[in-house]
């Protein structure tokens, strides 16, 4: 069992006071805080090993290249992407990873009459690229719907899939409602039909054990910054047989094999998809973040996540006038809870909480169509992680009650 209060000691940001108060950070679904070891690894890299990768024959460059390749192996191992089946491509983040698959695979292969299926739960990053693909290729975009509890309606999902379906993309765990989708079950049924599958794992990989090879999808993406790692690093696992058919995403240095003035032969994957200098210092430090999580154990991280989810639901439910969106129970759900409080606009509420040192996300959470489906334009979202404990949720609950009386008095 993880102890959030103890883990917090590894994260220097929690020494920070916000308007004289202790920091209550409940916005990890947007980006996580960083432990000392990751901050130190980044700093140490710049102090001791800094040089561009895959370029020089000198010691520094070789060290730098070694660290990048070591992280490539490490992250594949962390998320269970068997290197015999998957390439590990470094990108800037989940958004770029999905755009890469959209550009380098879907735009090249889909046409009028073809269909793409995604879900109503998607973040804009896993929605807008497919809208663009549909628009440019003439393909049809279909949405699998969610039920009133914010869970995927699997019957409806598979009703959307037919002989014309060429690609299915879905979120492993929702950034708005916390819903965990049954990725393996979905993918295995689609694999039988030879459909390309893409999974947005931005919330799942940081919070639960993920075994990409076991899921068996064609592509799986996530970001380092939501799992203790530095910003600017994302990972895309690509099934080899798919990657080998894909055209490059961007062109330039690092992705070529041989260039002449009139022609270019491209490098093999994964380098084929990694044009330009990668964020090699951040990638090196990401390996330290992975080690930190491995030491905690991802089973324990998930257990803590579910404990926090259940405490959040139980505590918030006791507040009169608070409406929770998403699964009402802690089964297959992360500690990401979106809610509305009375008629207090989320923007007003978010600012009130900020004055109590409590960081939450307010707004549409980059999921405007989902907000519309839920019948709102903005919600307040609290998300917990390894460094949170019950006390944070108690402080949130007490601040929410204060907000009710403040706004009742002020706004009526």
């Amino acid at each position, binding site marked *: 069992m993880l102890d959030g209060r103890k883990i917090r000691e590894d994260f220097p940001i929690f020494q920070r006071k916000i308007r004289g108060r202790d920091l209550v950070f409940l916005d990890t679904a947007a980006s996580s805080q960083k432990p000392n070891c990751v901050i130190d690894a980044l700093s140490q890299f710049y102090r001791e090993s800094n040089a561009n990768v895959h370029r020089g024959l000198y010691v520094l460059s070789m060290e730098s290249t070694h660290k990048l390749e070591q992280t490539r192996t490490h992250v594949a191992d962390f998320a269970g992407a068997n290197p015999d089946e998957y390439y590990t491509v470094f990108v800037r983040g989940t958004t770029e990873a999905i755009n890469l698959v959209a550009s380098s695979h879907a735009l090249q292969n889909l046409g009028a009459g073809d269909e793409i299926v995604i879900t109503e739960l998607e973040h804009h990053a896993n929605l807008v690229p497919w809208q663009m693909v549909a628009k440019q290729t003439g393909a049809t975009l279909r949405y699998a719907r969610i039920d009133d509890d914010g869970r995927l309606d699997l019957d409806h999902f598979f009703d959307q899939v037919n002989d014309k379906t060429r690609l299915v993309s879905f979120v492993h765990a929702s950034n708005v409602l916390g819903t965990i989708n049954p990725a393996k079950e979905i993918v295995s049924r689609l694999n039988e039909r030879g459909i390309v599958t893409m999974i947005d794992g931005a919330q799942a990989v940081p919070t639960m054990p993920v075994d990409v090879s076991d899921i068996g999808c064609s592509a799986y993406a996530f970001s380092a910054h939501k799992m203790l790692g530095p910003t600017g690093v994302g990972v895309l696992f690509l099934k080899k047989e798919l990657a080998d058919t894909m055209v490059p995403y961007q062109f330039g240095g690092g992705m070529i094999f041989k260039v002449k003035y009139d022609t270019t032969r491209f490098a093999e994957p994964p380098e084929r998809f990694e044009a330009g200098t990668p964020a090699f210092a951040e990638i090196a430090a990401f390996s330290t973040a992975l080690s930190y999580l491995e030491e905690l154990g991802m089973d324990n991280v998930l257990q803590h996540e579910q404990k926090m989810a259940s405490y959040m639901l139980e505590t918030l439910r006791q507040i009169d006038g608070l409406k929770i969106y998403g699964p009402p129970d802690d089964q297959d759900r992360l500690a990401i809870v979106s809610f509305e409080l009375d008629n207090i606009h989320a923007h007003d509420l978010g*600012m009130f909480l900020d004055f109590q040192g409590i960081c939450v996300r307010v707004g549409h959470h980059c999921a405007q169509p989902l907000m519309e489906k839920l019948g709102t334009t903005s919600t307040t979202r609290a998300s917990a992680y390894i460094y949170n404990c019950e006390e944070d949720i108690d402080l949130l609950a007490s601040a929410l009650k204060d907000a009710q009386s403040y706004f009742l008095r002020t706004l009526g």
Partner: protein
Amino acid sequence: MHREGQPGTEVHLSQLYRDAIVHHARNPAGSMPIGAADIQQDGYNPKCGDELLLRLRLGADGKEDDPVIEAAQVEVHGCTICRASGSLLWPHLKGSRISEIQAKIANFHELFKATGSDTEALGEAAILQSVAAFPARIDCALLPWSTVEAAFRAWSKATS
């Protein structure tokens, strides 16, 4: 509830939720439908989801390139600051010419800059200057005014 921040940066929520601002948010002026409109514009803040409907009816007094606004409807679905701002904008629309309103919008933008603004011309709307101490909320105050700006740009493009 209020705690001290860093020296010199202390702000209180009560500076944001001033009585007059809250009063306008609770009883917004100008949201009543006006019937037929010559100009209609949706306003939207993608950062927070605040929405706004602006409808304007133009008067026919011969000055076609700079008409007077005969009737205005400003309907805000958003936070306290955005609702109050819409309500405080409304009196500046009705009975004013487009060029006059444009000058006031420019003034309004200045409210949030260090350079200062002609607060007298803005009348009661100048109370929104207190939002300047809350940078995250400036866009909420600006939305109604920028929507009018966008509406005039679109109108001018369509009629030129």
